[in-house]
C-alpha cells in the first residue's frame, strides 16, 4: 500500500462529498419553500421579506448561492436553522455523537454474535445448526427496521416490561439509565446486521474451506481446528471488513427509522424533524454529515483491508 493509494482514496472522498453536496443542495433548493417566508411568517410585509431575501442572498444566481453555502460548509458553518434560529452545525454534530454511540454498540454486538454464528453454520454445513442460522438470517434480512423495532418493543417493553420503550438519557448523566434506554435500539439495529453479516461470513468461509490451500493444510497433518483458526478464518473474515463498511451505509439509513421509533435524538431523528419542518440548512447539514460518515467508514475499511491483505497491490 503506497502513499499514492491513500492520497487517491482521500481525493475520492473529496469528490464524493462534492457530488453529494451538489445533489443535496439541488434537491433542497428546488423544494417549494420560500426561506424568507418561513422565517418571518405568512404575515410579513413585502418590504421585510425583500430585505431578508437580499440579506440571505436569495436573489443571487443559484450557483452563487451554492458557492456561498459551500464556502460556509468548508469552514464548518452550515448556517442557521430556520426552525429554531440556532446555528445548525453544533446541534447536528451533537446528534451525530449519539448516533455513533448507537452504531458503535450495535457493531460490537453484531461482531460478537455474527462471526461465531457464521462459523458454526459454515463448519456444520447442511446440518440443523446451519439451517437454523440460515432461516434466522433470512427472516432478519427480510424484516424492515420498523417491524423489528415494533416487535422488540412489543416484547420487551410491553409484555415483559423489562426496559423502557422510548427516550434517551445521556450516559454522562446517569450511566445505568442511559444504558437501559440504549438496549432496545441497539438490539434492533444489531439484529438486522447480524442476519446480514452471519450470512456473509458463512458463504465466505464455505468458499475458503473448499480452496486448495485448505486441503493442502489438512494433508500436511494439521487438525481441523488448526486449519480452521489458523488458515481459514483470516481469509474468510477479510471480505467481512468491506461488508461491515458497506453496512454502515445501511446502518445510517436504518438509524433514521430506529431513532424515530425509540425517540433517540440522534442525527436520523434530527433529519426527520428537519424534513418535516422543511428546515433547509438542517436537511443539508444532516445529509452531508451522513454521507461524510459513510465515505470515511469506507475509506477506513479500504485502508484496513489493504493493510491486512497483502495480496492486493495498489498503485
Amino acid at each position, binding site marked *: 500500500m503506497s502513499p499514492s493509494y491513500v492520497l487517491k482514496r482521500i481525493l475520492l472522498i473529496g469528490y464524493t462529498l462534492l457530488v453529494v453536496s451538489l445533489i443535496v443542495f439541488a434537491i433542497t433548493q428546488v423544494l417549494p419553500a420560500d426561506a424568507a417566508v418561513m422565517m418571518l411568517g405568512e404575515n410579513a410585509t413585502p418590504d421585510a421579506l425583500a430585505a431578508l431575501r437580499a440579506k440571505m442572498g436569495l436573489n443571487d444566481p443559484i450557483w452563487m448561492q451554492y458557492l456561498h453555502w459551500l464556502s460556509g460548509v468548508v469552514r464548518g458553518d452550515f448556517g442557521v436553522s430556520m426552525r429554531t434560529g440556532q446555528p445548525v452545525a453544533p446541534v447536528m454534530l451533537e446528534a451525530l455523537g449519539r448516533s455513533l454511540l448507537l452504531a458503535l454498540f450495535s457493531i460490537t454486538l453484531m461482531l460478537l454474535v455474527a462471526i461465531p454464528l457464521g462459523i458454526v453454520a459454515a463448519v456444520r454445513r447442511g446440518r440443523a445448526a446451519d439451517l437454523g442460522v440460515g432461516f434466522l438470517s433470512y427472516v432478519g434480512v427480510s424484516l424492515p427496521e420498523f417491524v423489528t423495532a415494533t416487535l422488540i418493543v412489543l416484547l420487551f417493553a410491553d409484555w415483559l416490561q423489562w426496559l423502557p420503550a422510548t427516550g434517551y438519557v445521556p450516559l454522562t448523566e446517569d450511566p445505568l439509565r442511559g444504558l437501559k434506554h440504549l438496549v432496545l435500539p441497539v438490539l434492533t439495529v444489531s439484529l438486522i446486521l447480524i442476519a446480514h453479516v452471519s450470512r456473509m461470513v458463512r458463504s465466505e468461509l464455505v468458499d475458503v474451506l473448499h480452496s486448495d*490451500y485448505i486441503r493442502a493444510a*489438512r494433508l500436511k497433518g494439521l487438525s481441523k481446528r488448526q486449519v480452521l483458526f489458523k488458515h481459514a478464518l483470516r481469509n474468510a473474515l477479510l471480505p467481512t471488513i468491506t461488508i461491515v463498511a458497506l453496512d454502515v451505509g445501511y446502518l445510517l439509513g436504518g438509524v433514521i427509522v430506529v431513532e424515530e421509533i425509540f425517540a433517540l435524538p440522534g442525527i436520523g431523528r434530527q433529519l426527520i424533524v428537519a424534513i418535516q419542518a422543511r428546515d433547509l440548512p438542517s436537511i443539508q447539514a444532516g445529509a452531508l454529515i451522513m454521507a461524510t460518515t459513510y465515505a470515511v467508514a469506507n475509506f477506513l475499511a479500504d485502508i484496513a483491508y489493504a493493510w491486512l491483505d497483502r495480496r492486493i497491490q495498489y*498503485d
Partner: protein
Amino acid sequence: MGEPILDIAGYSLDYATPTGFTRALDDVTLAIAKGEVLGLVGESGSGKTSLAWAIMRHLPKSAREAGSIRLTGQDLLKASEAEIEAIRGRRIGMVFQDPSTSLNPTLPLGEQLAEVLVRHRSLSRKQAWAEGEERLAHVGLKVPRQMMRRYPHEASGGEKQRVVIATAFACQPECIIFDEPTTALDVITARQILDLFKALQEETGVASLYISHDLALVSQIATRVAVIHRGRIVEQGGVGEVFARPQDAYTQRLLAAVPRPDHRLVEAAPETAGKPLVEVEKVSVLYGRKPFLGRLLGRANTQFTGNREVSLSVKPGEILGIVGESGSGKSTLAKAMTGLNRFEGEIRFAGRRITGLSDMDRAYRRDVQIIFQHPDSSLNPRQRIREILSRPLALYGEPGARKDAAAIGALLEQVRLPASYAERYPHQLSGGEKQRVAIARAFASRPKLVICDEITSALDVSVQASVIELLVDLQKRFGTAYLFITHDLNLVRQIAHRIAVMYRGDLVDLIDVAALSGADLHPYTRSLLAAVPAPATAAA
C-alpha cells in the same frame, strides 16, 4: 525389489450419487518400494487424482471403498482420524499441482513450512524457522532467510513450488505423492523443478508416486510406470518395457498420441517463391494507460509491452508455429492480427495495407479467422450450435449459397461431428467436441489464414491428437495457412513448417523447423529446447 513402502491391493472406490454408485477406481493393485518412482499416467477423469486422495485418506462422505492401502504394513483404511493426521505430512507427503492455489495467500511461506515441523517433530517455533531456512536453502532457493518471510504473491511460481517440495520433504517421509507438480509452470521452470525432484529423490530414496498426464515426462523420471484408464490400471511395468512394447490397446493409443518431433504430420513447405499471404511488419502492442494520478506525482507510467516490433510473414498454405511461455506475447500478436488489440506498425494481407482496426474490412475478416484456447469461453453458452455456426455463413457465405440446416450439418460433418449436434448447447458437449465446433465456425467462411491460439492446451493428449489430425486434414483439403500458437515445442515441431520463438514480447528466432537442430540459435531457444523432455523411444 524390497519390501514395498506403499502397497495397494484390490482397491476399489465408488461415489454415491442420486442415481446410484459411480465407480472411480476399479480393483487397483500397485506397490512402490524404497527408492522407487512409480509414474501413474492417465488422462483427465481416469481416476489418478482420486487414487491420490484415497491414499491421503481425503475422501468425501459419499465414498465407498474396498480392498486395502498399506503403508509399511499398516492398513490406512482401518486407521483412526488421529492416526491419519499423524501420518499425513509426517510419513506421506504430498506436492500439489498449482503452487499458487495450494499455498495460503495470507501466511508467510516460512510459516507454512515451519508449521509442519512444529506439528510433527515437536520443534519450537524458533527451531522450526531455523530448520525451515536450511530446508529452503537445500531446495535451491537463493535467499532462504528472506524467502521465509515472503508471502506467496511475492514469490515466483518456481520458488513457490520449491517451498511446497521442501515442505513435503521436511519430515523425511517414507512416501511422497507428486500430483502433476510441473503442469502449472513454464517449460524452463518445470525442467528445473524436475531436476530438483530427481536430486532429492536420489538423496532420500523416498518412495514416490508421480502422477502425470505427460508420458514423455514420466518416461524420463520414473523407474516403473502404471497406466490408468477409467479407474483401472490397464498396464504396469518397467518404463523401458511399457514404452517400447506396450501390451494394452489403450496404452498403445496413448503412446501414439504423444507428439514427437521426428514424426512429421505435414508435407514439405509450400513453394518459397510464392508471394507471402500475410506480412506482419514491426507490429508493437502496448497495454495499459498512463495513470492520471501517477503522472501528477511524477511516477513512471505503468504501461507494459505486449509485443515489441514483431515482424514475420506467412505464405499461402504454410503452418507457422509460434512458441513461447505464458506472457511472451504470442496471444497478443494473435489479437492484434484479428483487431482485438490496438497496435502500431502494419500488417499486409493479400496486397492490402492494414494499420488499424478500421482497415480490417469484410474481406479481411472473412479470410483471417481465429480459434481460441478455451471453447467454454469462445462458444456463447446461451446459443445452440446451430446459431453459433450460422453467423459466419450469414456474414460470409457466397450469395445464394445454402445457409440452411443442411449447410450447418455439412460444417459439423467436416469436423467429424454428427449433424444432430446442431440442436445442442455447448455445455452438452465434451471439451474436444466443443473445440471442433469452434474449428467448424472458423472454417465456415473458407478462410485463407486461421490463427490457432493454444487450441489444444486444455485438451487431453488423445483428444489433442485427433484435433491436430483434423487440422492437418483441413489444411490439406483447403490449403489454409495456420498461425499455430502453442507452448508445446514437441507438438509444433510435428506440424509447423517454420517456427517463431517469442520471449517477453520479442520475436527472438524465426527459423525453419529443420534448422532447430542447428547451432545458430538464440540462447532462449536453446534453453527451451534443452528443457523439453524428448518423448520416450518411439513405439515401433
